[in-house]
């Protein structure tokens, strides 16, 4: 059984992570995604890496290979009038167009929903922009770090005992990943709307707002209690912390009372555990400076895997701090068939994260490795748009494709 979006036609003009991740989510469950890249240079993710043996090569960037498997790749110069008119021909037959040009780039290219809707009034066009399509900062320049900060996530993380160190961003381009996943949701909303009324629409996603939407309870501390949540302040409840074992790190997580009691028992009921200042999770948080070293002393003598198993058996939700090697060899993930091996003609064979969700009837599926730059030009321009070989050659010579 093919994926749930089989038959859905998506055009992605994506750079780096956000729009490519949104289109990847759709491609992996059956949508046909045609990825449009700039001739010669391609998606900047091709230059980001990581690369085998650390040698940059446009067909060997790990980030690009991960985000663009299952897609068809064509090149097209959108800055040329002929490029834009070819895009219109592609759009005429598409269900979704998803891109992540900032507003000033959209203006420069003349990429505009009203224009494309005249070509295809069933088109859902999704624009992922750093700060949204309007508002005073719409044309502000941004990167992932800037947006993780602008959305309020970065400020929260850091070392409480080291106020001299700055707020710390999470690994990877998480603001863009979240924008991509949220864009995929909003886009599917519009696609479902179209099943009801037959019309397309414009979906706009702000990366800053996406980050501001996932701040757990921390945002509410301001409107509810007039408190600033900071990397230096105490957490609302404890224990929730990374601690060092004798052979690695473990995340100590026991916030329910029964979990705490089970942990105390596991530690051999030390006397200090009966202290009034540790008697509930709010007090354990308020007195974390005193509690943490006591826990660390005991945890420091344990081995990660043994402590993890003992904790799980007592329904205490600890977890190891996984290294990349740990993840790739995890028995549980193997049993679920999570990682998938992709062979790419230039880059070789690596294991990539697989399905983020398992569908019982219409499974996630790997069909194709990421495209080489312009790999499917002939198939799309000649096969689909019915250009002649001579026309394609001429467009190539003119730098349009």
């Amino acid at each position, binding site marked *: 059984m093919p994926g749930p979006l089989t038959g859905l036609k998506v055009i992605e003009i994506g750079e780096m992570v956000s729009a490519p991740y949104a289109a990847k989510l759709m491609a992996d469950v059956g949508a046909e995604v045609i990825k449009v890249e700039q001739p010669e240079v391609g998606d900047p993710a091709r230059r980001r890496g990581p690369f085998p043996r650390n040698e940059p090569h446009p067909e060997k960037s790990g980030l690009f290979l991960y985000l663009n498997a299952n897609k068809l790749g064509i090149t097209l110069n959108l800055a040329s009038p002929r490029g834009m008119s070819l895009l219109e021909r592609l759009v005429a037959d598409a269900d979704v167009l998803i891109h992540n040009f900032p507003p000033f780039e959209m203006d420069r290219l003349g990429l505009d929903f009203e224009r494309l809707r005249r070509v295809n009034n069933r088109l859902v066009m999704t624009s992922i922009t750093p700060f949204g399509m309007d508002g005073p900062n719409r044309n502000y320049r941004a990167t992932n770090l800037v947006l993780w900060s*602008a959305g309020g996530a970065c400020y929260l993380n850091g070392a409480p005992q080291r106020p001299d160190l700055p707020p710390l961003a999470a690994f990877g381009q998480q603001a863009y990943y979240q924008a991509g996943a949220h864009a995929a949701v909003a886009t599917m909303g519009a696609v479902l709307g179209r099943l009801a009324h037959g019309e397309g629409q*414009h979906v706009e996603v702000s990366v800053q707002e996406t980050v501001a939407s996932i701040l757990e309870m921390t945002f509410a501390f301001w409107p509810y209690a007039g408190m600033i949540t900071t990397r230096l302040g105490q957490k609302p409840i404890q224990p929730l912390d990374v601690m060092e074992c004798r052979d690695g790190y473990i995340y100590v997580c026991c916030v329910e009372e029964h979990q705490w009691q089970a942990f105390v028992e596991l530690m051999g009921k030390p006397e200090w555990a009966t202290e009034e200042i540790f008697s509930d999770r709010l007090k354990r948080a308020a007195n974390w400076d005193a509690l943490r070293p006591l826990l660390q002393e005991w945890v420091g003598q344990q081995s990660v895997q043994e402590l993890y198993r003992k904790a799980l058996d007592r329904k205490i939700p600890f977890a190891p701090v996984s290294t990349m090697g740990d993840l790739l060899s995890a028995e549980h993930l193997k049993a679920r068939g999570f990682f998938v091996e992709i062979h790419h003609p230039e880059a070789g064979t690596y294991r990539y994260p697989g399905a983020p969700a398992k569908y019982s009837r219409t499974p996630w599926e790997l069909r194709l490795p990421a495209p080489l730059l312009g790999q499917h030009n002939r198939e799309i321009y000649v096969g689909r748009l019915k250009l002649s070989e001579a026309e394609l050659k001429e467009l190539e010579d003119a730098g349009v494709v």
Partner: protein
Amino acid sequence: MGTPPLRGVRVADFSWVWAGPYCTLQLAHLGAEVIRIETSLRPCVTRMLPPWADNQFGLNRSGYFNQYNQGKRSITLNLKHPQGVEVARRLIAKSDVLAHNFVRGVMEKFGLGYEEVRKIKPDIVMVALSGYGMTGPLSPYISYGPAQVPLAGFSALTGYEGGPPMHTAISYADPNAGIHAAFAVLAALYHRRRTGEGQFIDLSLWESATALTAEGLLEYQMSGREPARRGNRDPWMAPHGVFRCKDWPEPVGGGVVDRWVAIAVENDAQWRGLCRAMGRNELADDPRFASFESRKRHEAELDRIISEWTQRFSPQEVTEMLQKEGVPAYTCASNKELAEDPHLNARGYFVELEHPEVGVRMHAGIPWRLSRDTCRVESPAPLLGQHTEEVLTGLLGYSKADVVKLREMGAVQ
């Protein structure tokens, strides 16, 4: 102006805490009728967590719960009571989607596993979010979102240079699972509208989070080494960091003094812009900083120079000066600065609806807009059990006397 695209879709929402509720929040944003099944015997974890409005505890006063349950309804059922399960079955029969985030076995214990549920409603889309998923050797074990962050590799990759692994502060695996689950539900609904077929979706927090550490997993395979933690630095941009600004004039929001700004320079043109903004044009030609490679080599010195400059201003002032020169920068916003952000406020991002117990409070809104099928947060988060009577007598066809009886026998509570 159309109606929201999921108008007419009903979600029986057995989920709690954050991952599941974040999934159903998306469906509510898109216009679905989301009915949360709660119980006063064991209220949602987030109802029990701070912040409580004006620091007064109350099950309806938590900003955490009220943030992620906007636009939903709440009924209270005791699923350990056979009549409570019977009410749930009637609701499932009238629902299009069922969401839960219990560990494997809990819904089965209630007699509401997928095999049972599909007998009640054959074309239902059922989504289960859990730490380890519904299959595999660890599936019987419970897990919490915060623990899934290190488990998925984020902590090994996140940290100051030379320092220990760190968390991401927020329980990132939760909303991440929620948004991926929402996408899966929508994809399955699309399939259902075309074929009439429902299905079961098994989403593990671990796997959906590991999907976002791919760069680290590939670096490990391609280089043969575990990636090093590198603070806020970037392999292809310099300067790239979060810089200290002038302190608040006096402590605010419970004693906070420090303020920060994020700055990222992608290319030499932006570097020259940064030098102009700092009034240090001579640095643009300084061979230590003229190219990306040289800036990277002298990054510590570079950070010191920038930091000296940023500390003379507020983050908003630095942002304005840098953006004027085309340099990516923004306040590293605290919750207060976010709430007061002129741009977000101009866009109408925040939601301020009257809540019966906590009044008008600011909540994060919908981070996307649909041009035709306008979506908005239609109601504040529900009080515990606020809609029990209405749902049971309206949708489910119980009489008022039935509801009284169900309450007396402890099935509704």
